[in-house]
């Protein structure tokens, strides 16, 4: 039933046989399709948001608040997360030598919850499109009280319900993947590939952290609908929300970043023609990130007047988390160094992702240092930091995964020239957009404000140019996928074998 190629389990996904597709692959594929659609919607939000910033008359300020909220929530929960789980479903069972999912029903249910999550989270926009009297949520993706408790907009309640659906779906998926590896694995633990390790760690983190979001969302709903006082009044405190939220959300960002690290590790090793340098260390670093990232949530709250001693403690654990992250980066660079590099689309995309990871990491470490964080907290600098990580690293790594697994999932080649053009536009766009935001942040411009002094207009315009370039690039990506899935040249069973791959003129470097 499964065809496996010796040394590279992730490189070969069981193919459709006799018209039947294994459950895990179907669930994975559907997750990916969902993520693609939601990514388009979230991307459209971003494009409108950038337009509102350069031509405010075209979109009212209130819309701007809604746009950055729905953009963030959509990209994190409806795009990045499902995309990552999609790859995990499609790849991990084959990679661990399992013939099927354990708890396949959980996986199917997780899939079915996604549209419900989308409906809830995007209820405001959907209602608006249907002409109803609701407005999209405009609280920011962090739903901070008291703003989120005071807004009477019913779309906020629906969005919180949507988040509960995300939690349920995620926990089911994580449980399903963990159980599959534990019960159906036929490969020794230490022989598991790095992508599988990263998925395992992320799944474990998700199981531990997402229920906290569920609890916080239930409390907030109760404050809103039942007038309880968890986050307000004499009994509660808005700070409680922040603690709960960031205790969940910092692990969330590592749930989102670890599997992409796994993809990059795999792709870099594969197209350098060697094992990842420091493979064992990389596995330990992954696990270390998993544990440590539960201890650093306070670095999002430096501005809340927390006890200085706690601040210093959070600063040091945050710097400690940066350590295993940089170990990973060094492993990639060392692998590339002296490797026999084949510049395929997944490889080029991964290399660009490593570049953005470095910038995101450096800007993050600067934020973690208390004195600097105090200055840049709440400015566009933070926006630039996490977008270098999320768009630059997570986004590009997901694209690398898409190119890498496309021939395996569809049995066809994508168009390598379009892929190269797509990558060029995406990387240049991200660099331009977020370098501009970084400059705005360094100049002290606060984030989440629709208006700004005139002198900053050129930087905002530049950021808009970058964002639109990314959008153009993704149109080409989707076009390539659709076209190639139907009429691309057939790919061999092991498309990435040393002599394989769609050729471009300079695929080989000494």
């Amino acid at each position: 039933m499964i065809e496996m190629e010796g040394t590279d389990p992730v490189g070969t996904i069981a193919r459709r046989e006799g018209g039947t597709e294994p459950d895990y692959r179907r669930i994975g594929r559907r997750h990916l399709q969902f993520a693609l659609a939601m990514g388009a919607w979230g991307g459209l939000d971003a494009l409108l948001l950038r337009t509102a910033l350069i031509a405010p008359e075209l979109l009212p300020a209130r819309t701007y608040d809604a746009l950055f909220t729905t953009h963030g929530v959509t990209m994190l929960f409806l795009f990045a997360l499902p995309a990552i789980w999609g790859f995990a479903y499609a790849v991990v069972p084959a990679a661990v030598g399992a013939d099927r999912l354990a708890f396949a029903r959980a996986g199917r249910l997780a899939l079915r919850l996604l549209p419900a999550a989308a409906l809830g989270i995007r209820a405001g926009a959907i209602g608006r499109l249907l002409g109803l009297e609701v407005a999209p949520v405009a609280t920011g993706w962090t739903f901070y009280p008291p703003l989120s408790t005071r807004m009477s907009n019913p779309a906020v309640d629906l969005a919180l319900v949507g988040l509960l659906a995300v939690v349920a779906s995620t926990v089911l998926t994580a449980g399903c993947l963990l159980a599959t590896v534990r019960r159906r694995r036929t490969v020794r633990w230490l022989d598991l590939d790095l992508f599988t390790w990263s998925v395992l760690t992320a799944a474990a983190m998700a199981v531990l952290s997402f229920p906290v979001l569920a609890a916080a969302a239930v409390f907030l709903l109760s404050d809103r609908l039942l007038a309880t006082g968890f986050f307000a009044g004499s009994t509660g405190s808005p700070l409680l929300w922040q603690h709960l939220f960031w205790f969940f959300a910092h692990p969330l960002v590592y749930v989102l970043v670890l599997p992409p690290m796994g993809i990059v590790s795999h792709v870099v090793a594969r197209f350098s023609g060697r094992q990842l340098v420091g493979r064992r260390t990389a596995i330990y670093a992954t696990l270390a990130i998993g544990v440590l990232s539960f201890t650093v949530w306070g670095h999002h709250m430096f501005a809340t007047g927390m006890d200085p001693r706690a601040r210093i403690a959070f600063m040091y654990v945050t710097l400690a988390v940066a350590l295993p992250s940089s170990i990973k980066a060094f492993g990639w660079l060392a692998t590339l160094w002296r490797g026999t590099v084949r510049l395929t689309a997944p490889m080029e995309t991964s290399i660009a992702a490593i570049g953005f990871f470095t910038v995101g990491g450096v800007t993050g470490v600067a934020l973690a240092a208390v004195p600097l964080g105090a200055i840049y907290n709440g400015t566009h600098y933070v926006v630039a930091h996490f977008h270098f990580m999320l768009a630059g690293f997570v986004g590009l790594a997901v694209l690398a995964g898409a190119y890498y697994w496309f021939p395996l999932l569809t049995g066809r080649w994508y168009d390598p020239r379009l892929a190269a053009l797509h990558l060029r536009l995406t990387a240049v766009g991200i660099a331009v957009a977020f370098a501009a935001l970084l400059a705005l942040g360094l100049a002290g411009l606060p984030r989440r404000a629709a208006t700004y002094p005139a002198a900053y207009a050129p930087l905002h315009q530049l950021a808009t140019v970058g964002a639109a370039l990314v959008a153009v690039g993704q149109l080409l990506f989707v076009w390539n996928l659709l076209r190639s899935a139907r009429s691309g040249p057939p790919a061999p069973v092991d498309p990435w074998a040393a002599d394989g791959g769609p050729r471009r003129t300079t695929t080989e470097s000494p």
Partner: protein
Amino acid sequence: MDTATHPSPSDAGLGPTTLVFAVASVACHGLVRLAERTLPAFLAALGWGPIAAGVVATVGLAVAVGIGGLGPGDSLPRAAVAALAALGLVVWAGAPAIDGLLGTPLSALGWLLVGATLLAAWNADGVVGPDGSGFAATGPLADTDGSRGAGDAGLLRDPRTRHLAGAVGTAGAAGLAAATFAGTGADAGFPVLAVTGAVCGLTAAAGGADRRRPDDPDRGDSPSRADPTPVTGVSDVAELRREWESLPAGVRTAAVGDGLVRAATSLVALSLVLVVDAGVSIAPGRSLPPLSAFALLVGVESLGALAGVAATPAIVERADPRRMLTGGLAVLAVVPLSVVAAGPDVAVLGVLFALFGARTALRPFRPTLGGRATAPPGADDDRRTVPRTPPTVRGAIRAALVLAPLAGGALYALSPVVAFGLATSLGLLGVRELSRSVG
């Protein structure tokens, strides 16, 4: 399975990246044109008058003519041309605020000049090349035969295709501009156009990055070969005078006549936006903002240009070139004054703009422009030919017309009626000269 089944980049032809390059270039072209045409309104919103707009256009044109004067071998790679254009548009978009950001003392006008300089390579040598609209309509690149231009995307190799594509791009950009200006004023709308154009330019740069320019022989079959001389070519005034004096009197008169008509066009093209902006706004009960109306009019103009280019072969076949030329240019000459007279009547303005755009149909017959003005083989009726001026004279005319937008701006500052009336007088004078030479 063997690697032969893998797609390879040598799959020539109209691949998807070529298509992306062509579409992005055409869109960029259109947006550059719209930005150029609305620039005076943008400057007005910033508190600058028509003379400032004339300065920007004249400087941009001077650089473009200088670049056009370089030999074809000196051309920049087309990705670089597109990237420079994108940069120029970004500078335009931010012009009013860059000083505040960087602490430079250039003022908005200074940055607009920088942007115009960056855009010059695109105007001289871009994918669509000079096509007689935008700044090009206002100066020496106006109505050139499109012999320059890196339109080597296969699609766009032939100048006629290029002009068609350019008109389509301008029409599309005009639609976008109309929508933008319907929601916002010149001060915010202009940067939106410029930013969008920059995105298209960068997309073109990315799409064109791995393609080389075609070998020159490839383009040998195109009519552009008929006039391969550099655009300026006024290296030596004495030589120019010698050449001028050696020309037959009929050719000289024709050159003067056609040159006057071109000067008339160049004087007013840039100010049209100001006329419409001022004229339409006084119309009562109008829902469309004047700038939006102007953008639509530019769209109509480019449809006129499209029709003109499309009709050219048929006209060359059938019409009597001399009557065509004098008649057509006479109509063109009365357009400026009519625009001022039309006031707020958008329907009349639409007709006038369409006629203004349709002058592309006359291009082959014009003594200082046409590449195909000679008689079709076999037709030895000399009534079917018009005089053609030699390349040096054309270069001199182009160089002289660089100053037209500045002069036009100054005249407009004096009085719109004076500027547009003078343009019409000059145009009619030119037509009279022409009819003397061909009659």
